[in-house]
């Protein structure tokens, strides 16, 4: 029996020329939909970045419009790369990234293992812990400066008082002593971002099929064996994503340093690359040199994010 062609047995050919008679063609829709994004990104990203690339070869101060930019070739780059202080800022940044991200990873994954079971108020507890990472880092940093006050009126020192009395130490000058300033920045960053690690770990843990553990129980596997050979291999791809995300983010950290240790103090004890760049550009107004510094940083970030995207694509293929 012949059936009339209907929309059910005769699927439409999306994008076929038959449709172009009414309204915009698919090609036009595509262009109209993508153009605003591209125009905005070109105007607000590509153009300014090209401009600053050009300026990175000039001696130029934006606060002195009377002095015309003077072309000096690669001198800005040479000066920066041969300056031991610049390498120092990169080291400070690397130290911060490694300590903060490992602390967040270990604590976050640990807490996720604890939370990955049913208990009363679990939803409430999880939501509460997740709040800090949605808060403004600069505001959190500012308030922690209050908690970190160097005498006993600061909450942290007050809580540590029994311990301090025991070892006969004076209250810790958290944010004003070069020995402790970086520690306090790591603590604040860890407080903010451990929930991020926890959230991703929890997602990974809850996706592990229960029957794997049941099978292991039948074989009387130890808890360690289950953790090592079931839990870890199955959550590790997600954990890698989390670590990569946090590494990229920690690398550009600016807000907490700006407010907690007053622009990278004491001295340059906590001066990260971003902080140094800010000072170069908007404190000493070395515009040309700061553009060169920005480009050095940009190359590092692009290299890092390339590794990141490659890894992410690899994960997608495996999934």
């Amino acid at each position, binding site marked *: 029996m012949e059936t009339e062609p209907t929309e059910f047995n005769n699927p439409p050919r999306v994008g076929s020329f038959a449709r172009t008679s009414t309204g915009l063609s698919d090609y036009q829709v595509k262009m109209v939909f993508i153009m605003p994004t591209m125009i905005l990104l070109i105007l607000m990203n590509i153009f*300014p970045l090209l401009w600053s690339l050009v300026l990175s070869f000039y001696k130029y101060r934006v606060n002195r419009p009377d002095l015309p930019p003077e072309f000096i070739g690669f001198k800005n780059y040479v000066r920066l790369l041969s300056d031991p202080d610049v390498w120092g800022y990169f080291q400070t940044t690397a130290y911060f990234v490694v300590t903060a991200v490992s602390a967040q990873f270990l604590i976050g994954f640990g807490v996720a293992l604890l939370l990955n079971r049913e208990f009363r108020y679990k939803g409430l507890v999880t939501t509460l812990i997740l709040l800090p990472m949605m808060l403004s880092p600069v505001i959190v940093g500012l308030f922690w400066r209050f908690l970190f006050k160097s005498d006993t009126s600061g909450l942290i020192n007050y809580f540590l008082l029994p311990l301090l009395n025991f070892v006969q130490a004076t209250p810790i000058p958290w944010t004003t002593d070069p020995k402790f300033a970086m520690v306090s920045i790591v603590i604040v960053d860890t407080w903010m971002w451990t929930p991020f690690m926890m959230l991703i770990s929890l997602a990974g843990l809850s996706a592990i099929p229960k029957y794997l553990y049941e099978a292991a129980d039948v074989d009387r596997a130890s808890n360690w064996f289950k953790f090592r050979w079931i839990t870890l291999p199955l959550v590790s791809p997600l954990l890698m994503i989390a670590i990569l995300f946090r590494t990229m983010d920690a690398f550009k950290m600016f807000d907490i340093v700006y407010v907690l240790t007053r622009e990278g103090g004491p001295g340059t004890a906590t001066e990260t690359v971003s902080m140094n760049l800010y000072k170069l550009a908007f404190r000493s107004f070395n515009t040309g040199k700061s553009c060169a510094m920005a480009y050095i940083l940009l190359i590092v970030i692009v290299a890092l994010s390339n590794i990141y995207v490659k890894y992410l694509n690899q994960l997608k293929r495996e999934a």
Partner: protein
Amino acid sequence: MPTRRNFSYYLSRFSILLVVLIYLIPIYWIIVTSLKYGSDISAPFPKFFFKITFENYQKLFASKYFSQLLNSIIIGFTSTILAVGIGTLSAYAFSRFKIAGEDDLLFFILSTRMLPPIVVVIPIYLMYTVLKLRDTHFGLILLYTTFNLSFAVWLMKGFIDEIPKEYEDAALVDGYTRFQAFIKVVLPQASTGIAATAVFCLITAWNEFAFALVLTEVGGKAVTAPPSIVSATGKTGYDWGKVAAGTFIFLVPVAIFTFLVRKHLLRGVTFGAIKK
């Protein structure tokens, strides 16, 4: 099988309690400090019992804080609407059409967000100086829109990918144009995703500090709340009661919005890399 209340049970309960306290105490302390008299705040030891006062909030009313909070609201909402609107269009195109060099384009869009804000803001500062856009609402809206756009495209692409193509195909067969199908079929299906994306963009714009710090003047007309709270130092350092009150008012909307998107949090904080 009854749960055995062994050592590991109590250890896990204790750890959960400890973690909750570590996260609650700073937030509790913000609220408490905002309700204290200055003399109680600067006491040699923290005071857990004190006389409640609203003088810190009254001080805020007397200052420019609320007009700066209004700046945050205007800039945050306008840039969010623009970013989500433009981003959803592009996300649809990326999701449904073949685009030459699609992966590279998407990576390029994302890379603008991966750069440190200070790297981005130096050339913007130069450009805004020439265009006289520094310390204007328009300048910040434009920058926040661009900044959130990459995020909106990535997140919305994920949400639109999940809507079956068959819905639009059916609409196209029924004589809808592609544009009508997008408006009448895709958008309603994507509404949850749009709402979640908007909330994330709003929170990002609301919290943003580095751009606002560089591109506004202290006490200027377009200053948003974060630089305003941070720059409010007196001769003797911060008035912590006032800081706490301003912080509390600033944080409440974020807390409410976070609660609203708690189901999409994972997706939001990973640019849609992890869907759940």
